[in-house]
């Protein structure tokens, strides 16, 4: 158990530009490990990182697991499937169990918005909490790896124009990205049908548009969000065909982008719905880079939260309440 003050990474809104750049720069150093014969560092030896997943996400879990293991931490995977969590054990009781096991950090994916926040601040545990996606709220490490990928591809973020397209209303990836990219000086434009645009989007640090085509020639990067097919049944849009026609990224639209522009997707993709196979497999697509960068960024987050006597990033602990 770390002795010093404890911090968490719950939202990109909590990251200053300096914090975010520190994470990206640290990740850049970790990225170089990939070329070495031994990809492991002894830094977090003896520390325990728990991956607590209330929602299936093999990709995110493996990414965090790899990151923790490359830093020599002990990793415990605690998944809702096949454990007492699925039998109705409360988040609180699970948290108390993890506390008793001496977890130094809990990486939590939760279907409820605020799940990570609650785990961090309800006074149940003393570990650092890393939000690996909570409901329709935030997914800060995804935004960090997107920012890392953009910086690597575009040479920087200041003044770069990033267009985020799709189901913004239900997307934690969009929420985290808008805040982080704004903090890092990029200009974000959200594109969605009005039904999938957040109610109070005017107050967000970005601009918005209901049409994709006019935005494309001015975009340095386009981030396509995954569309849940069940949204159609909830009348957010009439048909998949209409959605794809108005908001999908396909070859014709890709041709309207500037030469240097990239197309991103957080995965998993619905090929043929929000992104065509041709685009997904093109040289502009950063999809596989995003996955690789995810490990480096998550190593950086774990190192900066757990590596020293006190964390270098994240939100101050609010202390135990009531």
């Amino acid at each position, binding site marked *: 158990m*770390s002795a010093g003050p404890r911090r968490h990474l719950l939202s990109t809104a909590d990251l200053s530009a300096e914090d975010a750049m*520190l994470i990206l*720069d*640290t990740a850049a*150093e*970790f990225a*170089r490990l990939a070329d*070495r*014969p*031994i990809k*492991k*560092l*002894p*830094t977090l030896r003896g520390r325990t990182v728990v991956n607590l997943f209330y929602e299936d996400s093999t990709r995110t879990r493996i990414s965090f697991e790899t990151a923790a293991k490359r*830093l020599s931490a002990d990793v415990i995977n605690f998944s809702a499937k096949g454990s007492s969590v699925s039998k109705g054990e409360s988040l609180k009781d699970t948290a108390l169990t993890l506390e008793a096991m001496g977890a130094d950090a809990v990486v939590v994916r939760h279907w409820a918005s605020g799940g990570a926040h609650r785990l961090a601040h309800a006074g149940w545990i003393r570990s650092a909490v890393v939000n690996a996606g909570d409901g329709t709220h935030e997914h800060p490490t995804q935004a960090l790896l997107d920012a890392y990928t953009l910086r690597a591809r575009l040479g920087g973020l200041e003044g770069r124009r990033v267009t985020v397209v799709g189901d913004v209303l239900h997307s934690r990836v969009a929420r985290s990205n808008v805040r982080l990219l704004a903090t890092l000086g990029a200009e974000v434009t959200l594109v969605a049908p009005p039904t999938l645009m957040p109610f109070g989007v005017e107050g967000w640090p970005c601009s918005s548009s209901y049409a994709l085509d006019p935005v494309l020639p001015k975009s340095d990067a386009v981030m396509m969000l995954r569309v849940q097919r069940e949204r159609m049944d909830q009348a957010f849009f009439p048909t998949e065909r209409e959605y794809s026609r108005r908001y999908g990224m396909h070859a014709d639209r890709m041709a309207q982008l500037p030469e240097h522009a990239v197309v991103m997707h957080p995965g998993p993709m619905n090929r043929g719905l929000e992104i065509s196979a041709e685009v997904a497999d093109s040289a502009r697509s950063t999809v596989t880079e995003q996955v690789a960068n995810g490990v480096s960024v998550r190593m950086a987050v774990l*190192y*900066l*939260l*757990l*590596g*020293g*006597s*006190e*964390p*270098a990033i994240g939100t101050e602990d609010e202390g135990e309440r009531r």
Partner: protein
Amino acid sequence: MTDVTVPTAAENAASGLRAPAPMRAVLDAAAVQRALTRIAHEILERTQGADDAVLLGIPTRGAHLAARLARQIAEVEGRTLPHGTLDVTMYRDDLRLRPARTLGHTEIPDGGVDGKLVVLVDDVLFSGRTIRAALDALADLGRPRAVQLAVLVDRGHRELPIRADYVGKNLPTAQRETVQVRLAEIDREDAVLLGTKPEREAGR
């Protein structure tokens, strides 16, 4: 060159504990240069031409020193030794005693370190813990034929069985003194300065 003198208790008292005694130059720019030239020659001598030597500097100042040594050797031999940097932050044994810090840069020259004679370069040799971390970091990068150590200043007070193969200047010091190496690349001058920690920070 000035001789090393430890300030007397009276001098300390006179300077007042609030403001530490000003740092005193024990090596000036010319002396730093002479020391590096000597180390460069010693490396060539002791490694019989340094055919398979790789210079790895420990960030921040050790990295600049390694680059300078490589340049000096090139002037003598007409050939540039492979040189790079080795960040040891993640291998330090005091990571958890201090706030998480920014990583330095590790840059291994083409050809790697396997089977090579690696000369680690650092500015000051003190407890030996940095070098211990460097040896661990090195082991994760490959298997050198041998490892040697070059330092600009050896100030004593070793806490581990580590010694330098090449020393620019042996500088006997008291625990509560501080040694600061300044290099033109980042500090706008070459010098080695000696100072005294204020009583409170001396860790007594």
